């Protein structure tokens, strides 16, 4: 088996992985990036609507700052997020976007003077300031108080990923494409790289590294209806789980996006509603204001998706030959706007639905969209259990999204996390802990183990089809672990997944094709995906409350008293048919914003006694501080700057700041 040595191994060539790679490389580390596909085809390229950063340049964004972005994100998370991490994030996001602007992303810019916008179904004229002309502009998104999503038409992810990839090429970072990490190499609680399968030849090889970073994106494909790319199968999270040591955080926190086109599940961006689009029901009635008078279509995604399904269940759906759905109406935005700011949406409608959204309604229904959970790390991106293992981006749970992510916060997270975790890995490699003493026999051992497992799959004894098992898993997840959850359905999902997992040990391949063999790929992936699916289903079954996107019809209240806790799943016994769940407390007494009402969605929740105590403590702290600016006040309540790499601690300048 060929062994390749490097300082830093980044598994994943999306925005998070490549930014982390660039950071580590700049610090003088040798870096290799692995990717299932050419890096520019990673799923980040599909992000459409925008990246949140509180620049506050355009009129809708004026007055925005880190504090408001922080509040929106914490509320969005339904108080599940780690507030230190959210602070680090909202402080670094403006820097991330400015760096990308310098690197070449053609962000849309503010045009001075009058322009027409659409709000609440009506046209308004607003006037952009002269001094903002040419600065980066932003659009409205759900769950935010300001227009904060910076964008490049509706190809934001594409533009970001191309710039990022090109900078990685400029930095001479090798990307080993069509290479799949299938196991982590580890010893005595120390990760030392990965066993990797070449998806062109089927060969196994080993990458040995001081620091290994999982940046493999989401795992939406455990569901049948998902907006995710078909490569989003969660193999990164799965191989971390299979160490039996590393943990996955909050796997039950799955986001469903309100506007997947029906029935294909392809996404049309939240920017459609942000720019003024409306949701209509079967009788073309705009129903969201009936449920959510405050934010209507622009409540957070978990709330809007639930309201949509509720409305469908109440008998108000539109019917098509594929089943029930609702409508997204962007006709009121006009052809000019759609042809420039929503052109990917227009293409998607044209090719997949045969409709022109400037004239026709778009059939939509919520679809699985995002995995808030993932490889549990600390605020530096390091696994607390497995030294030398790092994670960044959608695959990670350093936990800035809690139980619901805000639109536009993910691509922002990928870049911010890359900027921070790249530094963490370089620090680690340079430290005494970074030194690696690993024998080739250990590496060979892990390689042989994988070889053996692949051999068992290829053994003609079994009778199960990998493709059929995959379908059944996806059906089960979509039917039973969806937007509305309850004990009977979750229990059914857990039992079905246990059964599928058992059956997955008996897969029989019909093909023994030389090379990567797509059937073999499906077989070893479905075995691992079933474990991830079980972490989601079993975690959801245990969590007897509703928080963010995790909604239990049988426990509809958020329960801060019992559930200010993060789920940690591990799989210590490879033969077990359930993960081991542990819980980690979220300490309200350390929060900058103790739990409360989100400003949309349900108003009743079960309080924790610490909430009032902490609020009082904060009031006292601020009282004692006396007159102070917002930075000093924030620092008094929950200092966080010390957690950031030094070069990221500077104050963000904004238009209209006092010099």
């Amino acid at each position, binding site marked *: 088996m060929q062994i390749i040595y490097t300082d830093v191994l980044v598994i994943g060539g999306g925005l998070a992985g490549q930014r982390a790679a660039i950071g580590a490389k700049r610090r003088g580390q040798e870096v290799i990036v692995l990717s299932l596909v050419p*890096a520019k085809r990673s799923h980040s390229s*599909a992000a459409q609507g925008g990246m949140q950063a509180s620049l506050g340049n355009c009129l809708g964004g004026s007055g925005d700052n880190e504090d408001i972005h922080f509040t929106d994100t914490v509320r969005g998370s339904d108080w599940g997020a780690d507030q230190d991490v959210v602070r680090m994030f909202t402080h670094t996001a403006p820097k991330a976007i400015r760096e990308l602007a310098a690197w070449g992303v053609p962000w849309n810019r503010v045009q001075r003077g009058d322009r027409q916008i659409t709000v609440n179904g009506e046209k308004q004229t607003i006037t952009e300031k002269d001094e903002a002309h040419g600065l980066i502009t932003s659009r409205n998104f759900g769950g935010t108080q300001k227009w904060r999503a910076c964008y490049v038409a509706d190809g934001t992810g594409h533009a970001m990923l191309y710039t990022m990839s090109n900078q990685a090429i400029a930095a001479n970072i090798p990307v080993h494409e069509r290479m799949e990490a299938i196991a982590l190499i580890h010893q005595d609680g120390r990760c030392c790289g990965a066993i990797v399968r070449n998806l062109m030849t089927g060969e196994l090889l080993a990458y040995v590294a001081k620091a290994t970073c999982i940046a493999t994106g989401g795992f939406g494909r455990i569901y049948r209806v998902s907006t995710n790319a078909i490569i989003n199968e969660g193999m990164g999270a799965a191989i971390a789980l299979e160490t039996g040591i590393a943990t996955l955080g909050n796997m039950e926190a799955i986001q469903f996006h309100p506007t997947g086109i029906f029935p294909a599940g392809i996404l049309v961006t939240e920017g459609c509603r942000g720019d003024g689009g409306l949701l209509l029901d079967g009788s073309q009635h705009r129903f969201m204001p009936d449920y959510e008078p405050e934010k209507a279509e622009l409540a957070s995604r978990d709330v809007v998706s639930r309201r949509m399904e509720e409305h469908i269940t109440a008998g108000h759906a539109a019917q098509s030959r594929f089943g029930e759905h609702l409508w997204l109406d962007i006709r009121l935005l006009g052809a000019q706007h759609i042809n420039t700011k929503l052109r990917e949406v227009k293409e998607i409608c044209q090719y997949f639905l045969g409709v022109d959204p400037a004239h026709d309604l778009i059939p939509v229904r919520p679809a699985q969209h995002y995995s808030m959970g993932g490889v549990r790390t600390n605020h530096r991106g390091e696994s607390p259990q497995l030294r030398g293992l790092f994670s960044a981006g959608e695959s990670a749970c350093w936990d800035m999204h809690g139980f619901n992510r805000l639109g536009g916060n993910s691509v922002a997270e990928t870049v911010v996390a890359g900027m921070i975790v790249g530094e963490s890995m370089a620090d680690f490699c340079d430290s005494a802990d970074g030194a690696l003493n690993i024998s080739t026999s250990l590496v060979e051992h892990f390689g042989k183990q994988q070889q053996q497992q692949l051999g068992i799959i290829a053994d003609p004894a079994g009778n199960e089809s990998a493709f059929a098992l995959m379908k059944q898993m996806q059906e089960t997840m979509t039917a039973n672990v969806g937007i509305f959850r309850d004990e009977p359905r979750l229990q059914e999902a857990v039992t079905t997944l246990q059964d599928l997992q058992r059956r997955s040990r008996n897969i029989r391949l019909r093909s023994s*094709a030389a090379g990567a063999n797509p059937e073999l790929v499906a077989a070893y992936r479905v075995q691992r995906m079933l474990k991830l699916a079980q972490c989601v289903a079993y975690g959801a079954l245990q969590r007897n409350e509703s928080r963010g996107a995790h909604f239990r019809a049988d426990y509809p209240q958020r329960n801060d008293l019992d559930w200010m806790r993060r789920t940690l799943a591990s799989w210590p016994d490879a033969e077990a048919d359930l993960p081991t769940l542990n819980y980690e407390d979220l300490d309200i007494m350390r929060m900058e914003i103790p739990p409360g009402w989100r400003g949309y969605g349900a108003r009743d929740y079960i309080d924790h006694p610490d909430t009032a105590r902490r609020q009082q403590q904060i009031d006292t702290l601020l009282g004692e501080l006396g007159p102070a600016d917002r930075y000093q006040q924030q620092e008094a309540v929950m200092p966080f700057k010390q957690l950031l790499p030094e070069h990221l601690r500077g104050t963000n300048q904004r238009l209209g700041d006092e010099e």
Partner: protein
Amino acid sequence: MSAIPVQQVGRTLYIHILRHNPCDPLSEAHLQTFELEEADAMTLFIALNEIRENHDPSLQFDFVCRAGICGSCGMIINGRPGLACRTLTKDLPDNITLAPLPAFELIGDLSVNTGKWMRGMSEQLETWVHSQGLENADIDSLEQTMEPELAEQLYELERCIECGCCIAACGTALMREDFIGAVGLNQITRFQLDPRDQRSDAQFYQLVGDDSGVFGCMTLLGCEDMCPKQLPLATQIAFLRRRMAMV
């Protein structure tokens, strides 16, 4: 959410696929025909997966986003390069012939190594903003301004998804291995237009001012006709050629 009832529309499709597995020394290129019932709203993405799942699990092809965004699934569809994921079978005749994109290294069946080709092109043309001090850019202060219209123009050129259709449709690219094609030339116009890129016209000329670049184009316009993103490729090449002639 119940399963989506898929309505059969009754037509039988005959999908002829050019098969070859270079990893198998015994493999020879051949056409294999699969018969398939057409379903409502069927795309080639759905059809090919159905073939893999129900007829031949060894069939190789590439899909990632399946939404026409990532550029993975370029292939020759009844003689023309296009994105398979967003090609509806209802727009095609009963007989559908699929072949891998030419000009790229074959991985197997319909899967080709566009990634390697594109990375080579990027390295050769240095398709990134060249600017002093990028490593230490001040990211605390207000960003540099840019005219809104210019930003939109840049995005217009940046919409290229490096799918390889323009290369497969290009007479020169099929004859000259070193031709950078419309995809490369378009990138040059994109960076030349970008004020953040400090390269001079002479430096760009160095990169593309010969037959492997802008003077290799025979203006057959295949690239522009076949571009799934409808980029104005021929116009860009003509523009670049005029500009290069002045250097």
